[in-house]
């Protein structure tokens, strides 16, 4: 597989919830080069959720082009889109990312159960999913053995979000999309969390799309874009 330049590439993208409804998203052009750590600032009402549902493959645009890793994501049908997403994109959400009935390590290895490609990448590195989970958790400062045996519901919110990051990163997907993952953290923990996230993405060459309404985080990223300025539907 040759190196593709763009991790995400949008052209003339248009999306409306119904045929008669006004468009909620109209983006002429958005390119995210591979390896970039992009901060996309979007207050509520800027079309942030819509863009994320398009990138997650939950919704499909009415017109325009949405390429992910050079593949026409907007043209893929249900099952193929699901597989592509599972193989290439890791997600971190705002809150409650973990399954309460699984241990910390089991939560992190979850994507390997569903994506043969991610578990294949670990095999190529001659690591088992559990070893890799422990390595990632250690990188993220969760190597205290006492934490490991505890139910994930007893972890602090910051710890839970770091477990979610480890899960998004396992098996080295090309792209990680984080949706307000820091909104429940206080300022100190927020900065620590972001440094860990950035560091891991940089080490693995992973493209990071970080979506948040909080402009104060912007200096920590390579580049910042205002969604409200991109989305002609809200201007």
């Amino acid at each position, binding site marked *: 597989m040759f190196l593709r330049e763009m991790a995400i590439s949008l052209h003339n993208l248009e999306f409306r919830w119904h045929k008669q409804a006004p468009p909620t998203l109209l983006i002429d052009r958005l390119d995210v080069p591979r390896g970039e750590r992009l901060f996309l600032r979007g207050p509520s009402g800027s079309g942030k959720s819509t863009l994320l549902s398009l990138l*997650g493959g*939950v919704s499909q645009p009415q017109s325009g082009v949405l390429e992910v890793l050079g593949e026409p994501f907007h043209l893929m049908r249900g*099952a193929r889109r699901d597989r592509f*997403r599972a193989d290439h994109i890791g997600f971190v959400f*705002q809150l409650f990312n973990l*399954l309460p009935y699984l241990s910390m390590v089991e939560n992190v290895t979850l994507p390997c*159960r569903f994506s043969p490609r991610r578990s294949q990448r670990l095999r190529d590195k001659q690591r088992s999913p559990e070893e890799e989970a422990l390595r990632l958790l250690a990188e993220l400062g969760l190597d205290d053995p006492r934490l490991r045996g505890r139910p994930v519901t007893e972890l602090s919110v910051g710890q839970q979000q770091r477990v979610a990051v480890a899960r998004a990163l396992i098996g080295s997907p090309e792209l990680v999309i984080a949706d307000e993952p820091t909104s429940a953290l206080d300022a100190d923990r927020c900065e620590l969390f972001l440094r860990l996230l950035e560091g891991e993405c940089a080490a693995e060459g992973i493209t990071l799309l970080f979506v948040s309404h909080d402009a104060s985080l912007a200096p920590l990223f390579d580049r910042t874009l205002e969604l409200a300025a991109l989305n002609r539907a809200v201007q």
Partner: protein
Amino acid sequence: MPIIILALKSLWNRRATALLTLLSIALAVTLLLGVERLRTEARASFANTLSATDLVVGARSGPVPLLLYAVFRLGNATNNISWQSYQAIATRPEVAWTIPLALGDAHQGYPVLGTTAAYFDHYRYGQRQPLRLAQGVPFSDLYDAVLGAEVAKALGYRLGDAIVLSHGAGKVSFVDHADKPFRVVGILAATGTPVDRTVHVSLAAIEAIHIDYQNGAPRPGHSLSAEQAREMDLTPKTLTAFLVGLHSRVAVFRLQRFINDYPEEPLLAILPGVALGELWQVIGIGEQALLAVSAMVVLVGLAGMLTALLAGLGERRRELAILRSVGARPWQIFTLLVSEALTLALLGAAFGLALLYLLLAFSAPLLQAHYGLQLGLGLPSRHEWQLLGLVLGAGLVVGSIPAWRAYRYSLADGMSIRL
């Protein structure tokens, strides 16, 4: 299969609800299989009320009435048969043995049967089981009586007690044979057949207590004491019916035809197995109803599972969204929910089966002693496996309803975690 493991862990996480659901399915399965087993046993025991008997012979009426009074000792015979006809048939070369039956009297509503020692030698029920005396001995003296298990238990009789027979088959009789009391010499073990409800005396005793009767009523001024009756000729003049055993079953239809065409007297010979089958057709409707009711109970149990799964689904939308975000496809979400339901149904069926055997192990000796029902601890029959299969199938169908809902949710919600 990772999905199954996830399903099990998720179930374990909700174990309180899951356990209740499991329990209701298990109890329903126990009831279903228990009723099925009792039903099968009741039918078998009914069909085996009388075994090893080739023909039942009585005065000409119909097969079912003859069966009812000769075997079940219910109601009255319309006519008796003569001692001569009985002798003529009993002495035929193909006949191995006969059991004469003289009915018509009662003791506290329980039928009194006059018969001979052949009754204890040749009468068979169930899987050709002979009668067994729980206490005492067969009758030998003229005024000896042998009680069926239920008679002795219900009326509290013991060996040596004196009993008075009543004239006529009713519960309330105005004419007692009070002048000729009987002594209890034997009590039979429970058989689960009408034998349990019978008071057995000798044929001669039946003759003796009616010796001073004429046209079914005591002859005034001609009463004979118990001791005087001993001196009389007590050869019976009539019988109600008799059972016939043959040397070879091959001769059964020939003898049946011979008896039905008997020129001296209108007689009827029936094959007890065939007649019992006809009778079961009539009274067997109840067993179907019983099975239908227990099938309903299983449906209620599964409906409980459906309720629990559907109610839990709302709270689990977040769990489903997380699974979607880590790459689970909608069909895998469907599989997850179906495997949960199937696990519940499977464990429910297994626990139900275990509970059934536990109950059987405890109750089988009691049922045997009190009702003569033999509930084996054998492996489930093919029909029982089929019923279990139906329960699992129904569990699968019921489980696919919440699974389908979850599938729709996971398509609509995608990965957005709704709180």
